[in-house]
């Protein structure tokens, strides 16, 4: 989109309104529709079989990739439970990766790379993905679901995401941890986060 038009009826909800659904019986596409899948924010956070981006995972917690819309920062998530966390947002928001209340309330990018850490709240300096997985496992415990291992124990490494997705970007101007400077070994830092240590 380049040129845009002002419409006084578009405020906050924004964007072009979806086209109205066709009347029942109208010739508007196939008779069978794909069932909806739950939208989640990252690897290892799927509640059901077949609910990862590839649709071929076996059970809860084993999916390879997010089904929620990929985005690169705070307030860009579409709906409940579809925001990443860490890097931006207040202390309360940063404790809810993949568990935000509503659209635009997630505080960082989706998917959540393994190297990301929280910048405020009780999880400060610790892995965002591990917190997301903890919240997910608690939810599954309530739902009495068996949860399998995530393909990567601590979430998808940024290098892997870049390889798989073609590119990967999360917000922030504070340097790129993967190609950082001096005497940094990003793999070591990733391991420390994975062990639950502070960054």
């Amino acid at each position: 989109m380049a040129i845009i038009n002002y419409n006084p009826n578009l405020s906050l909800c924004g964007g072009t309104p979806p086209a109205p659904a066709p009347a029942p019986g109208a010739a508007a596409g196939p008779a069978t529709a794909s069932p909806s899948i739950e939208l989640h924010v990252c690897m290892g956070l799927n509640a059901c079989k077949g609910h990862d981006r590839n649709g071929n995972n076996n059970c809860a917690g084993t999916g390879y990739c997010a089904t929620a819309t990929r985005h690169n920062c705070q307030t860009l998530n579409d709906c409940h439970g579809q925001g990443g966390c860490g890097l931006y947002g207040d202390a309360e928001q940063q404790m809810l990766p993949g568990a935000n209340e509503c659209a635009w309330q997630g505080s960082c990018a989706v998917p959540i790379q393994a190297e990301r850490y929280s910048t405020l709240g009780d999880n400060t300096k610790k892995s965002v993905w591990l917190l997301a997985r903890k919240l997910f496992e608690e939810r599954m415990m309530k739902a009495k679901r068996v949860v399998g291992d995530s393909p990567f124990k601590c979430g998808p490494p940024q290098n892997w995401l870049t390889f798989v997705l073609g590119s990967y970007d999360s917000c922030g101007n504070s340097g790129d941890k993967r190609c950082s400077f001096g005497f940094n070994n990003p793999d070591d830092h990733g391991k420390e986060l994975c062990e639950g240590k502070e960054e």
Partner: protein
Amino acid sequence: MSQNLFFSKDSDVTPANLGDAIQQAIEIEIATIPVYLYTYYSINRSPDQDAISGALVQELVRAGKSTAEASAIALDLSADIMVYANKAGALIMSVAIEEMLHMALSSNLKQALAGLPELVGKSPSVWPACLPGHEPEFPINRAKLSLDQLMTFLKIESPDPLPDPKLLKAPIPYKTIGQFYKMIKTCIKDNDLPYNTHSPQLLPGKGYYAQNNIDTVYYDKEHNPHFTNAPDSGDLLYVRDRDSALHAIDCIVDQGEGAPGADGLNPDGSVNCGKVKPADYDDFDKKELSHFEKFAQIYCHYKTLDEKFNGLGIGEINISDYFVVNVPLNPSTAHYPAHIRPVSDFLNGVYTYLFVMVENCYVQSGNTQYETFMFGIHKSMIFILNSVCGDIMKLTYKHNGHEYVAAPTFEDYPFGLVSSPKSQLIDLYNAAVAVYPTISYLGQRVQDLPDVPLQNGGIF
């Protein structure tokens, strides 16, 4: 900006002029924001370490070092530059964020004691600018990072009167921002004032303010993150009585100048690069430095690095060449060439619309205010303003034989009253994208903004 001096030289803050005084405080806070942001955007926080290191190795080998020696020195020094560039950016951003907090706290104060705060059209319009009412006046530029610019920052945040004996002989309305706020405090303490608790304010606990984000973090050489703000240094505050009003003012003053007993510049006007004192912190846990001390740290670190590089025996080195972008001094949109002007107008429209939305938060409460703040103000700051600041800096132009990188000018855009500010913002976007299609990804973000009217009858 109408830089009114609201007081005669020897006047006090009284219940009669308290509203004007608080409005002046708001404008002092607003005046700092474009200055800090301009310098922030002049810093490349992630310069090319290989390029820095490679250039140093060549010079060091030419000066007689072995390749191994030169490589070791170059790795170490280039890492110093990487740390410094990122640290300077983080510290300046941490201050800019707190200036926005101060603007909101002062606005809460005005809402409680004197009516709607006025924010739109209050950014400086003449450059060099000055702090409204500060004496002695000193010039404030939108300039790239340098020791001179950092000295200006230190003057803005100085806890002591500026050491200029000639100027200090003149009677002055206020000598430091802290002293100005003290006049307001005295008025609040000494008078039984009514507090308006019915009108909306920007309140804590709603996610409006976050002390740190990834832009306030920098890494040391070992890549350990350092958080430049502290969770306990301050937050939004509901001004509803005398105690909360005084608390809001203390937060502003402590964050800016440090606790009582903090030192300013040396008597000769130089910067004290000695050990940090407890009073230089603004929080209970002593984890966050005051604005003045943060700028002193950047200033002193710059000097140390500069001496280190210039002691290598490889000629004169200006370390800022490694990480500071060559943006112009005090640019204006009107003087930009045709391929930049519409982009700058759009950027200024977004900048001004932020103030329009903040003003609106003082007439709306509940979920309307929440949505305006979270989805209008946050989105505009991070996903439109910050993005277009980065995009405009990909454009260059020539002036008097020198090439410059275009920079955000942070001028108030004069929204008219004939149509809504958002519709005018869309027009600005359309004009900008026509000359610079790179920003087309911003169209939907602009479209998504709340449609908010002007509150105070327009800017001009």
